[in-house]
Protein backbone atom coordinates (compact mmCIF):
# COMPACT_ATOMS: atom_id res chain seq x y z
CA UNK A 1 0.00 0.00 0.00
CA UNK A 2 2.88 2.34 0.86
CA UNK A 3 4.40 1.45 -2.47
CA UNK A 4 1.15 2.22 -4.24
CA UNK A 5 0.71 5.68 -2.75
CA UNK A 6 4.36 6.45 -3.48
CA UNK A 7 3.76 5.61 -7.12
CA UNK A 8 0.58 7.67 -7.15
CA UNK A 9 2.47 10.68 -5.81
CA UNK A 10 5.25 10.18 -8.33
CA UNK A 11 2.71 10.33 -11.12
CA UNK A 12 0.99 13.36 -9.59
CA UNK A 13 4.39 15.04 -9.48
CA UNK A 14 5.04 14.06 -13.11
CA UNK A 15 1.71 15.33 -14.46
CA UNK A 16 1.95 18.49 -12.34
CA UNK A 17 5.29 19.30 -13.95
CA UNK A 18 3.73 18.73 -17.38
CA UNK A 19 0.88 21.10 -16.47
CA UNK A 20 3.27 23.66 -15.00
CA UNK A 21 5.44 23.60 -18.13
CA UNK A 22 2.39 24.14 -20.33
CA UNK A 23 0.69 26.88 -18.33
CA UNK A 24 3.53 28.67 -16.53
CA UNK A 25 3.03 30.66 -13.34
CA UNK A 26 -0.64 31.44 -13.91
CA UNK A 27 -2.22 30.36 -10.59
CA UNK A 28 -5.83 30.35 -11.84
CA UNK A 29 -4.97 27.67 -14.45
CA UNK A 30 -4.79 25.16 -11.57
CA UNK A 31 -8.58 25.37 -11.24
CA UNK A 32 -8.53 23.11 -14.28
CA UNK A 33 -5.04 21.76 -13.61
CA UNK A 34 -5.64 20.09 -10.24
CA UNK A 35 -8.56 17.91 -11.41
CA UNK A 36 -6.77 17.20 -14.70
CA UNK A 37 -3.60 16.08 -12.90
CA UNK A 38 -5.56 13.90 -10.45
CA UNK A 39 -7.59 12.25 -13.22
CA UNK A 40 -4.52 11.74 -15.40
CA UNK A 41 -2.60 10.16 -12.51
CA UNK A 42 -5.47 7.82 -11.66
CA UNK A 43 -6.09 6.85 -15.28
CA UNK A 44 -2.40 6.30 -15.98
CA UNK A 45 -2.11 3.96 -12.98
CA UNK A 46 -5.16 2.04 -14.23
CA UNK A 47 -4.07 1.85 -17.88
CA UNK A 48 -0.33 1.48 -17.36
CA UNK A 49 0.29 -0.25 -14.04
CA UNK A 50 3.82 0.08 -12.66
CA UNK A 51 6.06 -2.32 -14.54
CA UNK A 52 9.22 -4.17 -13.71
CA UNK A 53 11.24 -2.03 -16.11
CA UNK A 54 14.14 0.05 -14.96
CA UNK A 55 14.63 2.87 -17.43
CA UNK A 56 18.32 3.35 -18.07
CA UNK A 57 19.47 6.97 -18.22
CA UNK A 58 22.39 6.09 -20.47
CA UNK A 59 19.89 4.32 -22.73
CA UNK A 60 17.78 7.48 -22.88
CA UNK A 61 20.77 9.59 -23.89
CA UNK A 62 21.65 7.15 -26.65
CA UNK A 63 18.04 6.85 -27.77
CA UNK A 64 17.39 10.59 -28.24
CA UNK A 65 20.04 11.28 -30.95
CA UNK A 66 19.17 7.96 -32.65
CA UNK A 67 15.50 8.93 -32.66
CA UNK A 68 16.12 12.46 -33.95
CA UNK A 69 18.42 11.24 -36.74
CA UNK A 70 15.99 8.54 -37.84
CA UNK A 71 12.99 10.90 -37.80
CA UNK A 72 14.91 13.41 -39.90
CA UNK A 73 15.80 10.65 -42.39
CA UNK A 74 12.16 9.55 -42.42
CA UNK A 75 10.98 13.10 -43.13
CA UNK A 76 13.51 13.69 -45.90
CA UNK A 77 12.70 10.28 -47.42
CA UNK A 78 8.98 11.06 -47.55
CA UNK A 79 9.67 14.55 -48.90
CA UNK A 80 11.80 13.14 -51.72
CA UNK A 81 9.14 10.60 -52.71
CA UNK A 82 6.32 13.14 -52.52
CA UNK A 83 8.01 15.80 -54.61
CA UNK A 84 9.71 13.59 -57.21
CA UNK A 85 8.24 13.64 -60.69
CA UNK A 86 8.87 9.90 -60.96
CA UNK A 87 6.91 7.29 -59.05
CA UNK A 88 9.27 6.22 -56.25
CA UNK A 89 6.92 3.94 -54.31
CA UNK A 90 7.16 0.18 -54.02
CA UNK A 91 5.02 -0.50 -50.94
CA UNK A 92 4.46 -3.82 -49.23
CA UNK A 93 3.72 -5.48 -45.91
CA UNK A 94 6.28 -7.30 -43.78
CA UNK A 95 5.89 -9.06 -40.48
CA UNK A 96 8.38 -8.77 -37.64
CA UNK A 97 8.58 -10.79 -34.43
CA UNK A 98 9.98 -8.83 -31.52
CA UNK A 99 11.67 -10.05 -28.35
CA UNK A 100 10.50 -6.97 -26.44
CA UNK A 101 8.15 -7.84 -23.61
CA UNK A 102 4.51 -6.85 -23.43
CA UNK A 103 3.62 -3.35 -22.27
CA UNK A 104 5.45 -0.05 -22.57
CA UNK A 105 8.47 -1.51 -24.41
CA UNK A 106 6.34 -2.98 -27.17
CA UNK A 107 4.12 0.09 -27.44
CA UNK A 108 7.11 2.41 -27.68
CA UNK A 109 8.52 0.07 -30.34
CA UNK A 110 5.30 0.08 -32.42
CA UNK A 111 4.98 3.86 -32.17
CA UNK A 112 8.56 4.68 -33.11
CA UNK A 113 8.50 2.28 -36.10
CA UNK A 114 6.14 4.79 -37.71
CA UNK A 115 8.83 7.45 -37.44
CA UNK A 116 11.65 5.42 -38.99
CA UNK A 117 12.32 6.02 -42.69
CA UNK A 118 9.72 4.26 -44.84
CA UNK A 119 8.08 2.07 -42.19
CA UNK A 120 4.75 2.25 -40.40
CA UNK A 121 3.38 -0.14 -37.81
CA UNK A 122 -0.01 -1.29 -39.06
CA UNK A 123 -0.88 -4.01 -36.60
CA UNK A 124 0.39 -5.33 -33.29
CA UNK A 125 -0.60 -8.88 -32.35
CA UNK A 126 1.22 -10.29 -29.35
CA UNK A 127 4.89 -10.15 -30.24
CA UNK A 128 4.31 -9.84 -33.97
CA UNK A 129 4.19 -6.44 -35.66
CA UNK A 130 2.83 -6.01 -39.17
CA UNK A 131 4.78 -3.26 -40.87
CA UNK A 132 3.80 -1.34 -43.98
CA UNK A 133 6.76 -0.07 -45.95
CA UNK A 134 6.96 2.61 -48.63
CA UNK A 135 9.75 0.85 -50.45
CA UNK A 136 10.62 -2.82 -50.22
CA UNK A 137 14.15 -1.93 -51.32
CA UNK A 138 14.87 -0.10 -48.03
CA UNK A 139 17.01 -1.82 -45.33
CA UNK A 140 13.90 -2.40 -43.20
CA UNK A 141 15.29 -5.26 -41.12
CA UNK A 142 18.45 -3.43 -40.17
CA UNK A 143 16.49 -0.29 -39.22
CA UNK A 144 13.94 -2.15 -37.13
CA UNK A 145 16.54 -4.27 -35.38
CA UNK A 146 18.51 -1.14 -34.57
CA UNK A 147 15.39 0.40 -33.04
CA UNK A 148 14.62 -2.80 -31.12
CA UNK A 149 18.09 -2.88 -29.56
CA UNK A 150 17.90 0.79 -28.61
CA UNK A 151 14.57 0.21 -26.84
CA UNK A 152 15.92 -2.91 -25.12
CA UNK A 153 18.86 -0.87 -23.83
CA UNK A 154 16.47 1.88 -22.76
CA UNK A 155 14.28 -0.51 -20.73
CA UNK A 156 17.16 -2.78 -19.65
CA UNK A 157 15.72 -5.84 -21.36
CA UNK A 158 18.24 -8.48 -22.36
CA UNK A 159 18.02 -9.08 -26.13
CA UNK A 160 18.53 -12.84 -25.94
CA UNK A 161 15.34 -13.48 -24.02
CA UNK A 162 12.44 -14.24 -26.36
CA UNK A 163 8.95 -14.28 -24.89
CA UNK A 164 6.76 -16.89 -26.46
CA UNK A 165 3.52 -15.04 -25.61
Amino acid sequence: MINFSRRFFLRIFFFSSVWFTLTGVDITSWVVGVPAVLIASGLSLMLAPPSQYQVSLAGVFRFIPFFLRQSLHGGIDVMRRALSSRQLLDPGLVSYTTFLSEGSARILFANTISLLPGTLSAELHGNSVTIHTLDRGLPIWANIQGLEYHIAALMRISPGKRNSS
Partner: protein
Amino acid sequence: MVPEKKNMDILYHSGTVLILLGLSFFLSGTVGLIRFPDIYTRLHALTKADNVGLGFVVSGLALQSGSWAVTAKLLLIWLLVLIASSASCHLIARSAMQKNIQPWTR
Protein backbone atom coordinates in the same frame (compact mmCIF):
# COMPACT_ATOMS: atom_id res chain seq x y z
CA MET B 1 24.84 46.51 -25.64
CA VAL B 2 25.67 46.37 -29.32
CA PRO B 3 27.17 42.83 -29.47
CA GLU B 4 24.25 41.53 -27.45
CA LYS B 5 21.78 42.94 -29.91
CA LYS B 6 23.74 41.40 -32.75
CA ASN B 7 23.54 38.03 -30.98
CA MET B 8 19.81 38.36 -30.66
CA ASP B 9 19.57 39.13 -34.35
CA ILE B 10 21.55 36.01 -35.26
CA LEU B 11 19.31 33.88 -33.06
CA TYR B 12 16.22 35.49 -34.53
CA HIS B 13 17.26 34.97 -38.14
CA SER B 14 18.45 31.38 -37.60
CA GLY B 15 15.05 30.80 -36.04
CA THR B 16 13.37 32.15 -39.16
CA VAL B 17 15.46 29.82 -41.35
CA LEU B 18 14.47 26.80 -39.21
CA ILE B 19 10.78 27.77 -39.34
CA LEU B 20 10.89 28.06 -43.14
CA LEU B 21 12.62 24.67 -43.32
CA GLY B 22 9.87 23.22 -41.12
CA LEU B 23 7.18 24.69 -43.36
CA SER B 24 8.75 23.03 -46.40
CA PHE B 25 8.34 19.67 -44.64
CA PHE B 26 4.68 20.45 -43.92
CA LEU B 27 4.22 21.38 -47.57
CA SER B 28 5.83 18.16 -48.83
CA GLY B 29 3.74 16.11 -46.39
CA THR B 30 0.63 17.69 -47.86
CA VAL B 31 1.83 17.06 -51.41
CA GLY B 32 2.38 13.42 -50.43
CA LEU B 33 -1.10 13.25 -48.92
CA ILE B 34 -2.53 14.34 -52.27
CA ARG B 35 -0.22 12.36 -54.56
CA PHE B 36 0.27 9.03 -52.77
CA PRO B 37 -2.01 6.20 -53.94
CA ASP B 38 -3.58 4.66 -50.80
CA ILE B 39 -4.37 5.15 -47.13
CA TYR B 40 -1.14 3.54 -45.88
CA THR B 41 1.25 5.53 -48.05
CA ARG B 42 -0.66 8.73 -47.18
CA LEU B 43 -0.21 8.01 -43.48
CA HIS B 44 3.55 7.77 -44.07
CA ALA B 45 3.55 11.20 -45.72
CA LEU B 46 1.51 12.89 -43.01
CA THR B 47 3.10 11.51 -39.87
CA LYS B 48 6.76 11.63 -40.84
CA ALA B 49 6.85 14.92 -42.71
CA ASP B 50 4.67 16.73 -40.17
CA ASN B 51 6.63 15.48 -37.17
CA VAL B 52 9.92 16.65 -38.65
CA GLY B 53 8.28 19.87 -39.83
CA LEU B 54 6.92 20.60 -36.37
CA GLY B 55 10.34 19.76 -34.90
CA PHE B 56 11.96 22.46 -37.04
CA VAL B 57 9.20 25.02 -36.38
CA VAL B 58 9.48 24.37 -32.64
CA SER B 59 13.29 24.72 -32.68
CA GLY B 60 12.99 27.93 -34.70
CA LEU B 61 10.44 29.42 -32.31
CA ALA B 62 12.58 28.33 -29.35
CA LEU B 63 15.58 30.23 -30.78
CA GLN B 64 13.43 33.31 -31.35
CA SER B 65 11.83 33.21 -27.90
CA GLY B 66 15.14 33.53 -26.05
CA SER B 67 13.51 32.03 -22.96
CA TRP B 68 14.10 28.64 -21.33
CA ALA B 69 10.53 28.38 -20.04
CA VAL B 70 9.11 28.88 -23.53
CA THR B 71 11.67 26.43 -24.98
CA ALA B 72 10.66 23.74 -22.48
CA LYS B 73 6.99 24.37 -23.24
CA LEU B 74 7.58 24.10 -27.00
CA LEU B 75 9.58 20.87 -26.65
CA LEU B 76 6.88 19.39 -24.46
CA ILE B 77 4.24 20.33 -27.05
CA TRP B 78 6.34 18.66 -29.77
CA LEU B 79 6.67 15.52 -27.66
CA LEU B 80 2.92 15.40 -26.99
CA VAL B 81 2.17 15.85 -30.71
CA LEU B 82 4.68 13.07 -31.54
CA ILE B 83 2.95 10.68 -29.16
CA ALA B 84 -0.54 11.62 -30.36
CA SER B 85 0.32 11.45 -34.06
CA SER B 86 2.20 8.14 -33.98
CA ALA B 87 -0.55 6.55 -31.89
CA SER B 88 -3.35 7.82 -34.13
CA CYS B 89 -1.36 6.82 -37.22
CA HIS B 90 -1.10 3.29 -35.86
CA LEU B 91 -4.82 3.21 -35.01
CA ILE B 92 -5.86 4.38 -38.49
CA ALA B 93 -3.56 1.82 -40.16
CA ARG B 94 -4.83 -0.92 -37.88
CA SER B 95 -8.47 -0.13 -38.57
CA ALA B 96 -7.72 -0.14 -42.33
CA MET B 97 -6.06 -3.57 -41.95
CA GLN B 98 -9.05 -4.90 -40.02
CA LYS B 99 -11.37 -3.66 -42.76
CA ASN B 100 -9.22 -5.68 -45.17
CA ILE B 101 -8.15 -2.67 -47.21
CA GLN B 102 -5.33 -4.04 -49.37
CA PRO B 103 -2.22 -1.89 -49.69
CA TRP B 104 -1.53 -0.44 -53.10
CA THR B 105 1.29 -2.30 -54.84
CA ARG B 106 3.36 -1.50 -57.83
